[in-house]
């Protein structure tokens, strides 16, 4: 696990590595209650409270809170679900897509919220479960809509290719749909959050070390990594939104591919 040169005994700077993500249980007696587990519960509470409060007294002319909720809902509904799945079928998948988007986004944003500052999705178990849910859904709706044989024929034999190519194409398409799709979805989300958190750690811990341990020149230069770390944090805000968006977008694309007729 040691990737960088670690100087264990001497007093040199030891950069953060993957061990920074191994958080101990919050209480010694409760083994499973770690910080990410708590954040998952917190995110569910936040999202439920947000949508319950904003839509409790719903009116034709929206108030400020209702407008915010409608903005989130409208974004997922119009720019993701309706554009990709198509106006005929998209309603059935709206609850799944909206839940995925808000859940992933809130958990990602935990990475930059002061006092929390840990992206839940940087533990791979959470993205894996989300990708499994998506995998089950798009295969299920495909099989239900077209039947088992027709669905897998559509997956393995896309039209418009000369016959002999199918020898190569059919197994590649099968593996890519059944194995590669959920794998890349989970790893993409995980890797983005992991790498983002690690980048912030590297900048901030490096700057802290320069400020505390360094000489006069290093103390002065430590302004630069601090500023870069803050810049990276704002960049992370963009990435966090983008990853939630991409995850939901790919979910919609896979569902659309599974239920579309000709392909």
């Amino acid at each position, binding site marked *: 696990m040691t990737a960088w*040169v670690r100087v264990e005994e001497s007093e040199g700077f030891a950069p953060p590595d993957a061990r920074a993500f191994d958080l101990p249980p919050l209480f010694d007696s409760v083994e499973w209650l770690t910080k990410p587990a708590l954040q998952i519960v917190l995110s569910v509470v936040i999202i439920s409270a947000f949508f319950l409060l904003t839509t409790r007294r719903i009116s034709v002319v929206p108030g400020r809170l209702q407008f915010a909720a409608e903005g989130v809902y409208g974004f997922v509904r119009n720019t993701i679900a309706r554009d990709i799945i198509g106006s005929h079928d998209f309603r059935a998948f709206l609850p799944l897509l909206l839940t995925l988007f808000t859940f992933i986004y809130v958990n990602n944003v935990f990475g930059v919220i002061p006092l929390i500052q840990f992206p839940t999705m940087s533990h791979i178990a959470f993205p894996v479960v989300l990708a499994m849910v998506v995998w089950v859904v798009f295969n299920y709706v495909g099989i239900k809509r077209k039947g088992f044989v027709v669905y897998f024929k559509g997956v393995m034999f896309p039209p418009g290719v000369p016959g002999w190519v199918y020898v190569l194409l059919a197994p590649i398409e099968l593996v890519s749909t059944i194995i590669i799709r959920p794998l890349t979805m989970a790893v993409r989300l995980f890797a*983005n959050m992991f*790498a983002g958190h690690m980048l912030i750690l590297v900048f901030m811990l490096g700057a802290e070390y320069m400020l505390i341990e360094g000489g006069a020149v290093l103390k002065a230069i430590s302004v630069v990594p601090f500023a870069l770390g803050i810049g990276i944090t704002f960049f992370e805000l963009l990435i966090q939104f983008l990853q939630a968006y*991409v995850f939901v977008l790919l979910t919609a694309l896979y569902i659309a591919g599974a239920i579309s007729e000709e392909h």
Partner: protein
Amino acid sequence: MEGSLNAVGYGLAAIGPGVGIGLIFAAYISGVARQPEARSTLQGIALLGFALVEALALLGFVLFFL
């Protein structure tokens, strides 16, 4: 000299996604330059492509720690 070959490997692995992201944004910029009114459509596509390609670089970054 001490160190880890992982770092060199990650540097090499980042070349591909670097070229890819460059191509995506080059196409986006020239697209907007030709048709400024298509900016909002192109922006979504460009960001989607950026996120997909960037994931390759991040895969290397994660493997770097394993």
